[in-house]
């Protein structure tokens, strides 16, 4: 019965809020009670009044972030795995540390680095090489780079965990039998590391789906993402049911991706060494 405290907490602090949001999402627009007549109008409005745009921005941004993170994490994980002893531990800790520095500090630093004219990069280039460069701050590219920067560790570490479970003997055996590097990767590394990569990719996608600060700090509002659109509905427009319906759409996308993976992946095997 030691599961009770956690179960109660999650029932009261996670499932109940989602249930309340679900109920609000089928209430008449701009009302504040939970007992109105049930209506699908908010969901209809979500697709007819242009809200699919911020939703699409968020989904495509998250997808792009996930792909870029995977492409960067693969060689990094392989390189980390090839290090030995204390060096591996040292580099791994160095990579992990920034996770514990606030997102707002790191993204702020990113924007200071990219700032035009007096920014760290532009200023240094100007002073050291007398070259004046432009700036990508306040563009979608900058926001995407910020997304990759923030979410990279969340792909790397599950991937590393997956890779670490590939027995070295298996790779050696394949090599002895004449497998090339490419074959080694395709036939052994990739399939065996797949659960770790899948967990990492899922983690990254879901976190990036709600990402908001990257766009605000680095993207300069060049695009409205879904979290921002929801926030506007709640705060400025005072239209809770509309905001709730948009929230439910994000939750639905998350659930559609997460639940099937949970069913397939054996957590025991991934955690236990």
């Amino acid at each position, binding site marked *: 019965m030691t*599961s009770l405290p956690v179960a109660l907490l999650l029932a009261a602090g*996670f499932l109940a809020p989602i249930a*309340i949001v679900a109920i609000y999402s089928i209430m008449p627009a701009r009302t504040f009670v939970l007992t109105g007549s049930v209506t699908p109008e908010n969901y209809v409005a979500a697709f007819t009044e242009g809200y699919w745009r911020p939703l699409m921005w968020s989904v495509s941004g998250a997808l792009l972030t996930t792909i870029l993170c995977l492409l960067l994490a693969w060689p990094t994980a392989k390189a980390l795995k090839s290090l030995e002893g204390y060096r591996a531990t040292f580099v791994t800790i160095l990579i992990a540390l*920034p996770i*514990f520095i606030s*997102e707002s500090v790191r993204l702020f630093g990113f924007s200071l680095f990219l700032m035009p004219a007096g920014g760290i990069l532009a200023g240094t280039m100007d002073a050291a090489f007398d070259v004046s460069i432009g700036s990508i701050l306040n563009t979608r590219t900058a926001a995407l780079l910020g997304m990759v920067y923030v979410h990279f560790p969340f792909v790397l570490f599950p991937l590393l965990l997956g890779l670490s479970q590939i027995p070295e003997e298996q790779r050696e055996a394949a090599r002895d039998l004449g497998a090339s590097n490419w074959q080694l990767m395709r036939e052994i590394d990739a399939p065996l590391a797949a659960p770790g990569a899948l967990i990492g990719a899922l983690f990254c996608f879901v976190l990036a789906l709600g990402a908001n*600060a990257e766009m605000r700090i680095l993207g300069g509002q060049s695009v409205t993402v879904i*979290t921002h659109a929801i926030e506007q509905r*709640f705060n400025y427009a005072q239209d809770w049911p509309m905001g709730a319906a948009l929230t439910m759409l994000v939750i639905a996308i998350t659930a559609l991706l997460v639940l099937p993976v949970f069913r397939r992946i054996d957590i025991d095997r991934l955690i236990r060494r």
Partner: protein
Amino acid sequence: MTGSNNSALRVLRSMWLLVVLLLLYVPIASVVLASLANTRYMRFPHRVWSLDAYAQALGTYTTANLHLTSLSIAVAVVIVSVIIASFGALAFARYDWAGRKLFRRLVLLPVFFPQPVLGLALLLYLTALGIVPDWKTAAFAHIVWVVPIVTLVISIRLYHYDVAQEEAAFDLGATRLQVFREITLPALAPGIVSGALFAFLLSWSNLPISVFTSGADTTLPEWLYSRTATNYSPLVPAVAVIGTAASAAIVLLAAALRPVFTRKR
């Protein structure tokens, strides 16, 4: 494969890791560099390098207040989540029981959930319940998100734990309390210390949940977030550095005290 090929690969890999580390730390270094100015506008490289911003930051009430809010939340989160998660970890990793599979999925769900969406859902929920958000509701929101993570952290340590020890103790006539104190708790201790560190750092640095659930109270990351867009001055990066250093100091202190918590009885 030839030897020279191998060493070329090794150099390439080291260089790649170096580039990755460099990219990860460039923004953090940028914050430190920006804080060392005394001009209102950012003009790097600074004409005058100074620590004025730090003197100013340490002298203002705001800095103290922001740290106090973040610290109150983090302390509450550490205490509550460690207690709840320790019980959760036992259910998650060790005891075999009927609902275990379902329980594990429930625990993992909030981890695989967009944080701002959780914050928004909690805001709507609290408002519907008639609760006015302040730092205490932010602490509750953090707990909802942190408990599953701490449960996982403690669970990982528990996988090496052998239930037979407990059974042996019972066979030898130990009471339930004795078994918990002498066997279960010492086994949990290292995980609890790591879990507490995770809880502290995740709460201290959290932005997406705090933004929606802290009401009129402002945490450190929230203040930084609001000041990055408007009202820039070197004070902002200076507070960022102070806040990060404060959390590092607290963690180092806890790490130094670690042997006290996990000593063998």
